[in-house]
């Protein structure tokens, strides 16, 4: 049961990552690999602050701001310095590796003794469920810490999704969406598309760094390697989410992305339980995203056998 709860909680935490990837990859069609650096950046910044005894909530804000700064740099490199999208992301990601080591001072910071979001969640859990250490949910034994953390992550993700959806409906939010949809049109309506892209990538990487910070606090350590493969992970969640809701309505897609992240994490937990070698995890994830990207196009051209073979781009 704690395996199930753990998967659920991590799935929720990583759905913030998925929302960030949704913002860059789907709204802007910008494959932003900065994500891999900003996950760790967020974790590093919040871990260092927690070690110093700073309030967990403040550490989360700082993580968001750090990620947003990284995203803004990628945006500036791409729009102002005209660097290719992927290369801009790679440059910032690579630079962040050193930055993260400097912030942390070493490659791994344990957070077991620090007051973090988990300890806050534990005390909130204790207040809600009483002082007993274990709960009984549907016949399963659940620790107060796990239950509190799950509820708290649910609240955080729900709030983030709500704010994001509201933002997408404001004047500036619609301008950001239009920038991804048709930059020529929105420029002709007086919007500085460079600025919108920088702002959008900042929000995207802010969310991703927030996911990194929460993940570090949940698992009890920040590690300089923890960002590797995170972008593909987020992408997988977005793709599963789109398949789940089968619509491109903003509200549904955002909800779907969160569900996709949780579902993907659950599937991974089950696969690991059944004996999947953890070393193969990233390979499987990459293969999954590959199949999801290419599958529909291949299936279509296979069905139209002998017909027009000019298949579109996969993405």
């Amino acid at each position, binding site marked *: 049961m704690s395996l199930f709860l753990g998967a659920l909680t991590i799935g929720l935490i990583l759905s913030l990552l998925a929302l960030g990837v949704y913002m860059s990859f789907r709204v802007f069609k910008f494959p932003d690999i900065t994500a891999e650096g900003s996950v760790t950046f967020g974790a590093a910044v919040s871990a260092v602050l927690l070690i110093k005894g700073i309030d967990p909530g403040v550490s989360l804000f700082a993580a968001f701001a750090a990620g947003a700064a990284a995203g803004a740099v990628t945006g500036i490199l791409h729009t102002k310095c005209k660097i290719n999208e992927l290369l801009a992301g790679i440059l910032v990601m690579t630079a962040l590796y050193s930055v993260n080591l400097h912030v942390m001072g070493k490659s791994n910071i344990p957070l077991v003794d620090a007051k973090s979001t988990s300890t806050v969640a534990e005390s909130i859990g204790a207040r809600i469920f009483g002082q007993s250490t274990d709960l009984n949910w549907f016949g399963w034994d659940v620790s107060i810490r796990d239950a509190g953390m799950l509820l708290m992550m649910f609240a955080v993700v729900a709030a983030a999704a709500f704010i994001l959806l509201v933002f997408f409906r404001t*004047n500036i939010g619609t301008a950001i969406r239009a920038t991804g*949809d048709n930059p020529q049109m929105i420029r002709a*309506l*007086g919007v500085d598309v460079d600025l919108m892209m920088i702002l959008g990538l900042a929000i995207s990487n802010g969310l991703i760094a927030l996911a990194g910070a929460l993940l570090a606090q949940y698992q009890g350590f920040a590690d300089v390697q923890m960002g590797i493969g995170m972008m593909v992970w987020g992408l997988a969640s977005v793709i599963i989410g789109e398949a789940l809701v089968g619509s491109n309505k903003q509200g549904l897609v955002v909800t779907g992305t969160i569900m996709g992240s949780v579902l993907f994490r659950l599937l991974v937990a089950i696969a690991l339980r059944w004996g999947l070698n953890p070393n193969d995890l990233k390979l499987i994830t990459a293969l999954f995203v590959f199949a999801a990207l290419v599958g529909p196009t291949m299936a279509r051209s296979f069905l139209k056998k002998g017909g027009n073979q000019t298949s579109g781009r996969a993405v």
Partner: protein
Amino acid sequence: MLEITNINKTFHAGTVNEVFALQDVSLSLAQGDFLIIIGTNGSGKSTLLNAVAGSFIADSGKISLSGHDITKWPEHKRASLIGRVFQNPFSGTAPTMTIAENLSLAAKRGKPRGFGWALDKQLQNELRDRIRTLNMGLEDRLDNAIGSLSGGQRQALTLLMASWLKPDLLLLDEHTAALDPKSADQVIRLTKDIVERDRLTTLMVTHSMQQAVHLGNRIIMMHKGQVLHDFKGASRQGIRSEDLLHRFEEVRRREQVDVRVAELLQRMYV
């Protein structure tokens, strides 16, 4: 109103592909003028429009609009004064966003955008009324994605969007060229209505001699980046499409003369 003074633009300067797209073009428009620009392919019609819109900065010369020197303004800043409809119906709207959202973007053209609702109640009512005037039945489909509409419908909406906040200058870049004849007629009628109703100063590029003689109060004909003919006032009155076609024929003959003279000189001196 609009004052274009000696603007020049050369693309790929210094290479074999060098194109003198605009050569010392000067043009002056008064408030309410409706100028039609015609010309052969590659004559610089669209380039002139793009120079005014700010798609690129001219190499030299000066452009001023409504008392502002906009020569160095970036495109998005000029948009506060200029409404624009593109040739491609896909260019003027955001396909995955709804009709209402697209119009809400246009309702803020050139204005600061903050955290207010893009679609407040007042705007929703207003845009329903304005879309009804198109007579396309789109007022009941405000929440549909614009990508699901036909080219003609999209172009009509783009025109509505460009003129939503009466722009100081309206730019129409062959905006019916990609449409079927029936939709093109519809969009042209709409163009006429809007421009006349709001007395908008307008620059319109077209390939259609029909449109050229039936719309506007002035016609210029461009060739090789220069203004070749300027029909205004008395010379614009009573002009027929045959007259314009005749001018095109002259241009074609002159080109042929160029080639033949070159051959002749080659034979004699090279």
